[in-house]
């Protein structure tokens, strides 16, 4: 059976997302290892002085490019692909999507200029009253608005499909991608409000001061669901693509997969205070409520773990795998896309456990802003998400360009080096955090570092070195594939794991949007409304800006 063909123009459009994403990763990942090397005592920053003024400027570049630009561009490209391919129809209005894309590109450039000029060394959380050049805030706004516009293009395409297919179940990859895009539209209202009502007018000199506590609250309204915006596209691949790639497996439970996406939509936003447990201006009772909701959003991740592993087991047994665990060896580990995503999933298990510790209200007193936190999110966004996206690109780039993947063995080696490097890096960061090491500090220069941290700091550097090699392997494979003269003999097959039971047999309410959207908004109003109302009522714009870098 021949698969649906997406148009050449759309392939180019999706490919341009990939291009920007990978360029951002290339530059951003240059600085990751530099931070790690500094910890181990191999400080390269003094040699970079003519271009990069400080460790913190490097850290800003690393955070903004890797956590914000690489992810957002890859995700918007992947979601666009999923909607087109899933619904088997072209974008309703590709011009609209292109406008969104170019807004995002202009935004990245606008933000990059002050960052590179050391005028926005505010890290990727840009907490005021650290005051960056106005172009930084304009750039961030354009990236968010551009991603909204692209989302609208996807929704319009879906609405047309729905009109023509009123009774059908939305195909899973399109459904899950639309939920992810909807989540993004809702949750970015926080950071949009922060920038448009405070940071931008302040950086332009229109208002004299900001309220830092309110700004943090707006930021974390977006900050945690941002994590799910990163993660859900990886989940889409794990649910509905990876089992097929790993051995012709099927998706174990279509209905529960859909239910878990709805729970993510409803629960991802109303729990941002778990990033603010130790903020003085947020009442503890609301922090506690948000902590309970954070435990709630762990539930759909547990459901995901079951369905994904069951689907992989189906694939393993189909390939002749036996025993309780022996089937794992039968999965197609030689396929770099499979190896990368399986390894990403394994490390995500530990990322999830660490996340529960962070979320645990008073346990957070021990962990807040220690090295445990970057240790944690390098397992989640930098591995579960990033390594999965790398795995996806190993089939997506050949699919989009018609070029054969260059040297798949190197790509497999890339996945394993990332896995090993991240275990060493992340484990030592977690331990350092428990010993009390703060995050965001060039620890080699810090005057209070006890000798017992040294062996761990050395391991951070070793992990960083292995990750540097892995990143270089990835970029080489991507570049050589793009330049490859060898083309694919037949169109690359899009891996789709069909559900074991017909989705049409699942309940209809799993395909209804209104109750979930309204439910999500209602819960946000309920658990954010009173605190935000109070904070806005008592707003004190008393903090002038500071450029202390």
């Amino acid at each position, binding site marked *: 059976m021949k698969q649906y063909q997406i148009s050449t123009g759309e392939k180019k459009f999706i490919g341009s997302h990939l291009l920007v994403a990978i360029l951002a990763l290339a530059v951003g990942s240059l600085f990751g290892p530099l931070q790690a090397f500094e910890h181990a005592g191999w400080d390269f920053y003094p040699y970079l002085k003519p271009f990069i003024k*400080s460790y*913190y400027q490097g850290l800003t570049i690393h955070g903004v490019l890797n956590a914000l630009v690489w992810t957002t561009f890859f995700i918007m490209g992947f979601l666009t692909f999923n909607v087109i391919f899933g619904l088997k129809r072209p974008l309703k209005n590709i011009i609209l999507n292109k406008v969104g894309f170019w807004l995002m590109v202009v935004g990245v450039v606008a933000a990059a200029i002050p960052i590179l000029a050391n005028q926005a060394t505010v*890290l990727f959380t840009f*907490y005021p*009253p*650290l005051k960056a050049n106005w172009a930084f805030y304009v750039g961030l706004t354009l990236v968010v608005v551009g991603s909204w516009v692209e989302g609208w293009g996807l929704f319009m395409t879906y609405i047309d499909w729905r009109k023509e297919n009123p009774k059908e179940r939305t195909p899973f990859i399109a459904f899950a991608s639309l939920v992810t895009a909807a989540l993004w539209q809702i949750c970015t209202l926080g950071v949009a409000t922060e920038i448009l009502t405070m940071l931008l007018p302040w950086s332009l000199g229109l208002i004299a001061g900001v309220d*830092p*506590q309110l700004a943090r609250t707006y930021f974390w309204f977006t900050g945690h669901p941002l994590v799910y915006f990163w993660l859900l596209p990886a989940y889409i691949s794990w649910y509905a693509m990876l089992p097929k790639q790993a051995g012709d497996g099927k998706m*174990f*439970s279509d209905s*529960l997969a859909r*239910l878990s996406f709805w729970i993510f939509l409803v629960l991802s936003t109303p729990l941002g205070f778990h990033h*603010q*447990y*130790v*903020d*003085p*201006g*947020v*009442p*503890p009772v609301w*922090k*506690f409520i948000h902590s309970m909701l954070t435990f*709630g959003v*762990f*539930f759909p991740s*547990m*459901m995901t773990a*079951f*369905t994904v592993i069951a689907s992989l087991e189906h694939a393993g047994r189909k390939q002749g795998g036996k025993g309780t665990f022996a089937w794992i060896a039968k999965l197609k580990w030689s396929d770099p896309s499979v190896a990368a995503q399986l390894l990403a999933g394994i490390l995500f298990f530990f990322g999830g456990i660490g996340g529960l510790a962070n979320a*645990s*209200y*008073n*346990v*957070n*007193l*021990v962990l*807040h*802003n*220690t090295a445990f936190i970057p240790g944690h999110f390098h397992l989640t966004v930098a591995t579960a998400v990033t390594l999965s996206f790398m795995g996806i690109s190993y089939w997506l780039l050949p699919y989009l360009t018609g070029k054969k993947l260059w040297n798949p063995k190197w790509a497999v080696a890339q996945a394993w080096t990332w896995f090993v490097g991240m275990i060493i890096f992340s484990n030592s960061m977690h331990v350092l955090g428990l010993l*009390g090491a*703060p*995050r965001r*500090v*060039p*620890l080699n*220069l*810090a*005057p*209070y570092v006890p000798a017992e941290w040294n062996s761990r700091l050395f391991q951070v550097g070793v992990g960083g070195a292995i990750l540097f090699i892995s990143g270089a392997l990835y970029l080489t494979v991507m570049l050589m594939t793009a330049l490859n003269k060898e083309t694919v003999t037949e169109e690359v097959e899009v891996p789709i794991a069909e559900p074991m039971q017909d989705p049409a*047999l*699942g*309940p*209809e309410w*799993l395909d209804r949007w209104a109750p979930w959207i309204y439910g999500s908004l209602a819960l946000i109003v309920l658990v954010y409304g009173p605190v935000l109302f109070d904070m806005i009522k*008592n707003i004190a714009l*008393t903090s002038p800006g*500071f450029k*202390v*870098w």
Partner: protein
Amino acid sequence: MSAQKIHVHPFERNWMIFSAIMLVLFATAVSVAAFGMGIQVPGPEQRVDPRTVATDPNSPWSSPGLREIVPGKKYDAYILAHALPTWEYLPKELTVPAGSSVTFYVTSSDVQHGFKIQNTNANFMVIPGQVSKLTIKFSKPGIYNYICTEYCGVGHGVMYGSITVTP
């Protein structure tokens, strides 16, 4: 069509029940620690004006330092964090006898900072305009560094102070 139910495999049902029980256990543990054992997180204390908090003679942070409430037992510590003119806490050093409980009142006169006392549960944000309050009992003699845990400019990594707990 409306009577359709989600088909759930028995293994999957058991897994979901297991997950739910785990989460209830975690939530219970956290709640007992918070409300039974009193391990609490900071909450709203008072608002200040960061522009004048260090200079206004009526502000306790214009003369930061230790206030003895009950000699040898109970102290209040008013601590000012700042990045300008240089990255430091005022005061940089405190001395209390072992067994004393110290209530910290920390604020910032410029950007956001952190305040974490090593080897204790004290760890909180310092946000301009807000006052962070937490009480810690120092039972064991020794030196406890307090370090900045939030990026506050190029001097962030050298910003710290220390508490000496005397026997």
